[in-house]
């Protein structure tokens, strides 16, 4: 077998075998051996958990074995799932909804992660909860970005605040907040153009949007959500860091979890930056948004798809 064929066969095997292998080991081995631990490490790495967070979790396992919390292979998966769930659990937050309406939400992230789609889903979610929602087309840059948000507005019966393509996004944000006040909206959700976190001029633009909003309502935006694509690898950590440097992030939306990617990098992000995941996107439809459940997420890391 050539190098590529071997590799392909190997990948096939790895992908199929994970749960299988764990089950087999649970049945076949009385003790936990190195090979078993290697496989466990591979599950974490293949879910994009990353080298350092994986190392941290493996250390927890080794101490769990020492302390006799883990005695048999079958103890391992639940042990690790529990550890990850705990890691991901949000610190109890200060009471929400203490602000006067309108609540201002700003949606940020790199290109193509699913910001605009998530806004459509959120509009629908809050609409169904009986809230009056406005959405604002703050991406004035990308071709047909405004049209895209307008279609989401129609789908969800939500009014869209917009300016012409190429206009100043901060002005759109200003108008959106004004309109939300005037129309007594409960929530206004502002879209922004996709931008790479390394582009300082675009991050400055984001800061300006933020300043304009805060000038209108002092504690706004009340939520600034960073949208991350579950398919993204370790770069998501840099994204979270640099967006967090520019604006105060309140949480993460993890999209495209309906694919085979596991989005394990959010564990590292929570671990290193203490940024909680609040929502997950599981499809392109209006209802494909779920509140984040750490236990369910941790379990999914070990599941084959």
């Amino acid at each position, binding site marked *: 077998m050539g190098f590529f064929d071997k590799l392909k066969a190997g990948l096939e095997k790895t992908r199929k075998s994970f749960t299988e292998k764990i089950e087999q080991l649970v049945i076949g081995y009385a003790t936990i051996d190195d090979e078993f631990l290697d496989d466990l490490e591979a599950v974490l790495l293949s879910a994009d958990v990353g*080298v350092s967070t994986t190392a941290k979790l493996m250390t927890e396992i080794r101490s769990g074995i020492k302390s006799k919390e883990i005695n048999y292979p079958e103890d391992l998966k639940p042990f690790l799932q529990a550890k990850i769930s705990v890691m991901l659990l949000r610190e109890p937050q200060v009471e929400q909804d203490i602000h006067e309406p309108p609540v201002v939400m700003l949606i940020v992230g790199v290109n193509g992660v699913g910001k605009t789609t998530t806004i459509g889903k959120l509009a629908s979610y809050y609409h169904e909860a009986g809230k009056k929602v406005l959405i604002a087309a703050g991406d004035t840059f990308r071709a047909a970005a405004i049209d895209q948000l307008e279609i989401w507005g129609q789908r969800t019966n939500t009014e869209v605040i917009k300016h012409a393509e190429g206009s100043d996004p901060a002005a759109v944000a200003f108008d959106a907040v004004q309109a939300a006040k005037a129309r007594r909206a409960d929530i206004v959700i502002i879209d922004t153009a996709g931008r790479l976190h390394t582009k300082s001029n675009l991050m400055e633009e984001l800061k300006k949007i933020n300043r304009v909003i805060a000038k209108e309502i002092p504690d706004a935006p009340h939520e600034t959500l960073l949208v991350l694509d579950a398919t993204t690898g370790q770069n998501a950590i840099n994204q979270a860091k640099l967006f967090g440097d520019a604006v105060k992030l309140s949480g993460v939306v993890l999209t495209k979890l309906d694919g085979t990617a596991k989005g394990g990098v959010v564990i590292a992000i929570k671990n290193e930056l203490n940024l909680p995941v609040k929502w997950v996107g599981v499809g392109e439809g209006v209802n494909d948004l779920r509140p984040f459940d750490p236990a369910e997420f941790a379990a999914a890391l070990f599941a084959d798809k």
Partner: protein
Amino acid sequence: MVFESLADKLQQTFKKLRGRGKLSESDVTEALKEVRMALLEADVNFKVVKDLVAKIKERAIGQEVLESLTPAQHVIKIVNEELTNLMGGTQSRIAIASRPPTVIMLVGLQGAGKTTTAGKLAHLLKRQGKRPLMVAADIYRPAAIKQLEVLGEKLEIPVFTMGQENPVNIAKKAVDQALMMARDIVIIDTAGRLHINEELMNELKSIKQTVKPHEILLVVDAMTGQDAVNVAETFNKDLGLDGVILTKLDGDARGGAALSIKAVTGQPIKFAGMGEKLDALEPFHPDRMASRILGMGDVLSLIEKA
């Protein structure tokens, strides 16, 4: 970051060994631990890393260290060579059909950059004297057709649309239209889809059967993590890819996905997307990608001189 310091770490690892003539197994094993970490942090698939590390180990053990290099540099040299080899030579060419039109189909996951790349590619080919026609075959994403139309207007390149008609029909009619309008390139923008969505993958297969594209190119986001192999493998198996375009390389992603994709598909990465603007498409350079993945361009240029 782990990456910035790979070279340093290797220097550290080898400090104790200064002056020795040959690399021993234990020296190499130590060094390769660092290499493994660096590759994983760069999002190279863990299985690809495993095989690569084994290969490098085999090559490095027992090798005579060159006079001009430290043992650390020597290992880096081998690593770099293996990465570059694995990624293949430069091949930023589109196979032009002997009988026009040349049909190019862009496929990939949601948000990878297909529509933008369609515009960039059309622009590039137009500048080379071709007459492209872009085809709006994404009938699902809100305003996808409009998006391509806006790009077409900016570039002064015609866009073929048929509303929400079946994408297979759209593609077929577009090729007929190209023949009539004497357009020699047809670039089909398809909807983003998950590789596990059978229905939508079947749609692509039907388009392929109907218009027999000369180039089926997978568009992949350079920030993609471990899942890149599954995605590339499935698209390749279902469609038989002719190449890959890696987008969003203007950021700080290490782009280890490039290596994984190349390893599982064997297909060349033809272009790199370097920005949102329509002229931001460049030929892909495997050697530069290797040093980007290793995160040490400077060290490498030093070694190359040695």
